[in-house]
């Protein structure tokens, strides 16, 4: 289905890309099931807190220059923004000595009476107040669970404010309960900003678009694309209106990962013919070579692409070879988002390490760009490289990950930002944030990763000390569980121990919910 930015917010991934958050098996199995369209989501009868779309949607928009966000929510929800902005945007580097402004984050602070009588007037007041305080060029109004449950017409308020204030005021779809995947917030951000900023280009330029969280380390890749005659345009959480306009003129594009970037890059391809490369992500050496060949082939610059590959390989060969003996035979467990988990496993293998298990925070059988279910990067790895390993899919279910780490006893857990690192360190297993974005691209990325891994193994004193002290706060019953113990039993689908009888009539169960018309009509 084509992407339609005229809608208020993106369709959720469960429907668009048939994404799941409950699975355990292997890479071969999940990719095959994904390809044949028979991958089913497993539901859980026990869950822990996770993330929601609010965080990625809001933090991505807050870093954009001259914009502000009004959260149409009760007072707590906009707290998510502190994690990645810490009061100001860290998304893009800033000139030394110059101080950024605080990010501009407002809340309509919905109260109990607003949930009854509506909060639209109040919302408009805050939008006006925010506008007069900071004079932004764009305003985004984030929706929330509460605003959507009580049925606020945020779109109408945004349209009215656009008219009144003379700047674009756009809805930002950020109601967490719409999806089990927080990553829907990434595309919500691109959806709303793209809607505000994209313009049909007057002419095409030799530009390659990179979409990702940030353009950090752009200096490492710009010269590479220059050799193919391409300038870069960045669509990130710090992009300007001009960046968005330049992106429309581009010939080709790629993203930091297909979770963050596929939605918007698919749109650019669909509307402005910007060819999107997604089958092979340029991460690590293998990924880089495959990606460069795809790109060079498309541009008719195969020779230059081969030259670049040779140069990059040579530049880091010795450095990487020196580190390899330190990594040899070490085992790793990966727990990352769907766009990175499989990529990092391949990079670990490239370095001679063994990936004993990968936890992916969700899995997409489809990508926005095509109906072809085989055109997925994990599928390419399984088929082209013939690799296979155990895979779990969960939306940062840390109690499950705890048991997985316990079972596999890896030498290191490669993870970031969703709790698995804290728990593996607490229990004494070394962990490492592998880096992301441009910093994992190509042989340079492989070298940085190898170096970080080697340093992690050099001195594990801190983890050893934690291990010696660790006392589990969980019961023996829990500690004895096999890793995937929280799936609702077959036929039960999460029916609790004691079925809930609502005022003595019907039994509510997750099974019923799963089979409800709301769900089946979307299939």
């Amino acid at each position, binding site marked *: 289905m084509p992407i339609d930015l005229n809608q208020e917010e993106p369709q959720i991934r469960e429907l668009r890309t048939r994404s799941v958050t409950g699975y355990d098996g292997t890479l071969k199995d999940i990719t095959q099931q994904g390809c044949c369209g028979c991958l089913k989501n497993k539901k859980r009868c026990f869950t822990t*807190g*996770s993330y929601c779309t609010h965080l990625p949607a809001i933090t991505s928009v807050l870093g954009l220059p001259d914009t502000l966000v009004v959260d149409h929510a*009760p007072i707590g929800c906009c707290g998510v923004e502190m994690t990645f902005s810490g*009061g100001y945007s860290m998304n893009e580097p800033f000139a030394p000595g110059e101080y950024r402004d605080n990010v501009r984050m407002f809340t309509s602070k919905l109260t109990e009476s607003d949930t009854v009588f509506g909060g639209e007037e109040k919302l408009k007041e805050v939008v006006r107040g925010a506008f007069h305080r900071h004079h932004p060029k764009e305003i985004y109004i984030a929706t929330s669970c509460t605003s959507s449950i*009580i049925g606020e017409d945020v779109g109408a308020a945004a349209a009215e404010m656009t008219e009144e204030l003379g700047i674009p005021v756009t809805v930002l779809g950020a109601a967490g309960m719409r999806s089990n995947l927080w990553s829907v917030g990434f595309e919500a951000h691109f959806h709303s900003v793209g809607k505000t900023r994209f313009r049909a280009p007057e002419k095409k330029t030799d530009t390659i678009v990179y979409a990702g969280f940030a353009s950090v380390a752009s200096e490492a890749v710009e010269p590479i694309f220059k050799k193919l005659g391409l300038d870069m345009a960045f669509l990130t959480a710090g992009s300007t209106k001009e960046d968005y306009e330049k992106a429309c003129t581009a010939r080709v594009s790629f993203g930091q990962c297909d979770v963050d970037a596929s939605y918007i890059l698919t749109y650019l391809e669909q509307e402005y013919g910007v060819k999107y490369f997604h089958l092979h992500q340029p991460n690590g050496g293998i990924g880089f070579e495959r990606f460069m060949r795809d790109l060079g082939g498309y541009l008719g610059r195969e020779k230059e692409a081969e030259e670049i590959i040779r140069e990059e390989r040579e530049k880091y060969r010795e450095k990487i070879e020196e580190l390899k003996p330190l990594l040899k035979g070490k085992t790793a467990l990966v727990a990352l988002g769907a766009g990175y988990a499989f990529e990092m496993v391949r990079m670990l293998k490239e370095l001679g390490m063994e990936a004993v298990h990968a936890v992916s925070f969700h899995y997409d059988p489809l990508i926005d760009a095509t109906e072809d279910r085989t055109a997925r990067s994990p599928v390419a790895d399984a088929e082209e490289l013939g690799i296979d390993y155990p895979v779990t899919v969960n939306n940062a279910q840390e109690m499950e990950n705890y048991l997985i780490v316990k079972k596999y006893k890896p030498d290191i857990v490669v993870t970031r930002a969703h709790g698995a690192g804290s728990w593996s360190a607490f229990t004494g297993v070394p962990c490492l944030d592998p880096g992301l974005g441009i910093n994992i691209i190509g042989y340079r990325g492989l070298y940085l990763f190898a170096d970080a891994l080697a340093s992690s193994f050099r001195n594990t004193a801190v983890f050893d000390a934690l291990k010696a002290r660790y006392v589990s*706060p969980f019961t023996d019953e829990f500690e004895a569980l096999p890793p995937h113990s929280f799936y609702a039993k077959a036929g039960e689908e999460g029916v*609790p121990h004691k079925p809930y009888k609502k005022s003595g009539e019907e039994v509510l169960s997750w099974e019923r919910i799963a089979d409800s018309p709301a769900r089946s009509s979307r299939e």
Partner: protein
Amino acid sequence: MGENSGFSCPEQQRVGCGLGGIYTALSIGGVLPVLHSGPGCIHAMNSVLSLSNGGQNPVPFMELSVPCSNLSEEDVVFGAGGKIRSVLEHALRYYKAEIFLIITGCSAEIIGEDMQEVADEFSTPEKTVLPVALPGFKGNNVWGHGQILSALIDGFVEPYGERGTVKGRVNVLGVVPFYDPMWAGTLERLECLLKQIGLEPNILYGRDKGIQELKRIPTAEFNLVLAPWTDLDAAKKLKRKFGTPYVHFPYMPVGPTAEAELIRVLTETAALDVQKTESIIKDRTDRYFYYFDRNLNWLFDMHNQRSLPREFFANTSASAALSITKYLVWDLGLSPRKIFIPEDVPKKHQPGVRDLFLQTAKGYLKEEDIVFTDDGGLFEQYLKDVDQTVRKSAVFGSIWDDITAKKANMPFVPVGTPYGDNLICDKNYFGTDGALCLMADLYNDAEKKGLLSAVI
């Protein structure tokens, strides 16, 4: 427009929502919140109250191990009683805890299912299950903290608490764990001091605190509230339930004057050995001035008085603002210019809090200088119109004010939530020892910003 007229324009988040009250639960060993909320609520709290608040997470139950029903759209339509029961049932089996709190956030509250019924169903003599409604649309995390305390008192302390009175035992109230970013270090220091003067402090939060401390609550000789307004309601409740009197000492002491005042109040209340407590006061004050005197060259000779910050603004919780006001005004010789309190202090407490500031500020503040608001960004706006050529003032606030202060080239010290994306460890400004640390932080920041000079 009704209640919306005159509505302010809240920016710069400095509180969590009611659900942030779970940090109080997570600071008491053996208590586990089980969330009945959207999947992201925990993270919204985590960002403001823990991660960006001095990099502190609760232990042992770090946020992402907290059970949660992760409500979705379907649940709102079809009900979620089954879901929370299932999550709770597993939580009871998997976590070493004795008190399980079913915490309902906004979406669960809008669905409106009866959680008391669920709690009753799962409570056993060994494991207490209590419902606590903490939707963000009802209040902020300070309100949430009060709700948690109140639920624990009613649902656990009253039925299971010890009885009788233990002489010298004192429950410490007033601190909101995590929301006071220095809560852990502060409470440890306070505990030491109270023990030193001959009391038996019963502190509820932090290392090694838990069920036992909760059970002891009814046996205290008196309750000590160390805050301008937080926990006053809890103290009144304890008085009603157990007849325990309370002492309201309105700030966590920072500096020699406040510390001595507290010790003297406690000496009188608990009829402690005056000679002993006076000698403790003298010893601690002497120590403070020994270290203070060692800075005289730096403070008053090299960096002359003219360039030291002599005035200050605060933009933080009433508790933090009052504590530092006491120290800065009474010991360090600074004067307050304006105090912003962006924490939605309940209307009924505002007059009392205002009076406390007026008294503590020794006449340097007028009534209109104490600003109750829910808008953390108000101070930044206010500052735009303040002429700073001759009156460079210090700023005490949160990470948001860090940037405001940097841009205005004013010395800055974080004292409130969100403290910053840095590590707070056991840092505290408690008493005489803590005051030295606060003084160093203040003048070091002024020095780092090039504000202190011998030649201006």
